[in-house]
């Protein structure tokens, strides 16, 4: 298997963390993984994204020009990445914040009310976890839900660890919604 993924949103939505969490989980289940964020001037202006690859084979370029799946959490990210998806790819988008309608008909499109679902679990900051839970349900080859939950301790910085209960609840909720 080979999955080239994009996680995108604005700064603070935890898109970089989502990618790292997935990498650690997949790594622990024996996959080859890579993660590379947008950086430098590209990340100024409030948008952030990262490219993640999960593969059975060694990874060449860490870049993902044409993702097999994209998780987008705000409007500019949808506009930027929807056109880049491979035909047959998966688009997970955050309907809480995105009011643009996806256009493509050759991809699978799943909208989820990530912010509101996360808020119901205690913090809208965990919207990324809702989306990630949904993603691994739709793409079970990436990793198991259990691996994601176990990887939280490694991926989340010390100052944010108090949110991990909410993160776990949101991962599960997103997974169930998938």
């Amino acid at each position, binding site marked *: 298997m080979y999955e080239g993924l994009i996680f995108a949103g604005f700064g603070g939505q935890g898109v970089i963390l989502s990618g790292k969490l997935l990498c650690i989980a997949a790594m622990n289940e024996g996959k080859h993984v890579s993660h590379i964020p947008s950086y430098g001037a590209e990340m100024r202006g409030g948008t952030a994204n990262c490219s993640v690859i999960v593969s059975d084979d060694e990874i060449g*370029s*860490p870049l993902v020009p044409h993702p097999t799946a994209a998780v987008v959490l705000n409007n500019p990210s949808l506009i930027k990445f929807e056109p880049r998806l491979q035909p047959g790819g998966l688009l997970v988008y955050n309907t809480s914040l995105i009011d643009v309608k996806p256009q493509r008909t050759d991809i699978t499109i799943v909208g989820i009310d990530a912010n509101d679902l996360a808020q119901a679990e205690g913090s809208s900051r965990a919207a990324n976890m809702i989306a990630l839970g949904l993603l691994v349900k739709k793409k079970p080859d990436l990793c198991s839900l259990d691996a994601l939950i176990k990887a939280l301790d490694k991926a989340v910085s010390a100052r944010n660890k108090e949110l991990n209960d909410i993160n776990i609840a949101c991962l599960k909720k997103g997974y169930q919604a998938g």
Partner: protein
Amino acid sequence: MSEKVLMKGNEALAEAAIIAGCRHYFAYPITPQNEIPAYMALRMPMVEGTFLQAESEIASINMVYGASAAGARVMTSSSSPGISLKQEGISYLAGAELPAVIVNMMRGGPGLGNIAGSQADYFQATKGGGHGDYHIIVLAPGNVQELADLTIRAFDLADEYRIPVMILGDGFLGQMSEPLVLPKPTGKKFDKSSWALSGAKGRDHHIVYSLRLTPEHALEELNIRLQERYAAISEKEILFDTYRADDAEFLLVAFGTSSRLCRNAVNILRKEGIKAGLFRPITLWPFPYDELEKAAEKVRMVLSVEMNAGQMIEDIRLALGKDKDIQSYGKMGGVVPEVDEIVEKVRSYGTR
């Protein structure tokens, strides 16, 4: 510490330097290697080391020079434009026979260029860059694990040969996170007491210098000594890797990030029944001329894949001469070569 962890290239390198015993780090911020100074700023105080953000690249390489002269394991890091500024200091390190580790996470050039990964500093790194007849050892890691492992090796090589060692990565390698097992220290000890500056107590005074104007301190003599050392390094320290190259008819030659793409390309070509293989120099200086010659003995075509206009290809030509068909595929300005294009380049050649 044999646990697999996910780490960003820049941070894995910084931690490996600390594992290697580096306790002095001087640098100036530049993208795409900013995680190295940030990591060192956080980490050095924990190990009673020095992190100093210098006023310039020029100052930082000279702080490295001073710390090395004082006998310490020391490192600086930068990216292409900053490495250009450090060249003066690198030449002085070479002239004064001082060990140091210098990291270049290459970005697109010339000029301010961009911040994407690039391999356009191959000539600068391997052919000099600064003034004078000198070489530095140049190590080109291909993944985050190797980045960490070669960092450990870089410090040992620097101390063993009293030579600056450059780790030549690129923005992609520095920015990407991959699983790795953090390396262990080698524990090798190097006695610097015969030359390091520690105060002239019970011995003649030591002088670290490269100015040689008089017959008793002849410059030619220094140069001969350096060249003998370079010959010994070329003899003993070559590193390279091959992948499915044993029976290859088509040999891709690439280092660092571009070698990763070539590996994918080889697998695709092999599935199609095309016998492709990869030769990956890990030491770019000394370049594995003989080893490449041997690997390319029976191949029909050699394809140099680089993230530049074709720089390493000159060393490939030196290794293989004019009889071999040596092709170039390079992407410039921080653009990554496409695996499909590498495949197509070989495929179209194979069927003609």
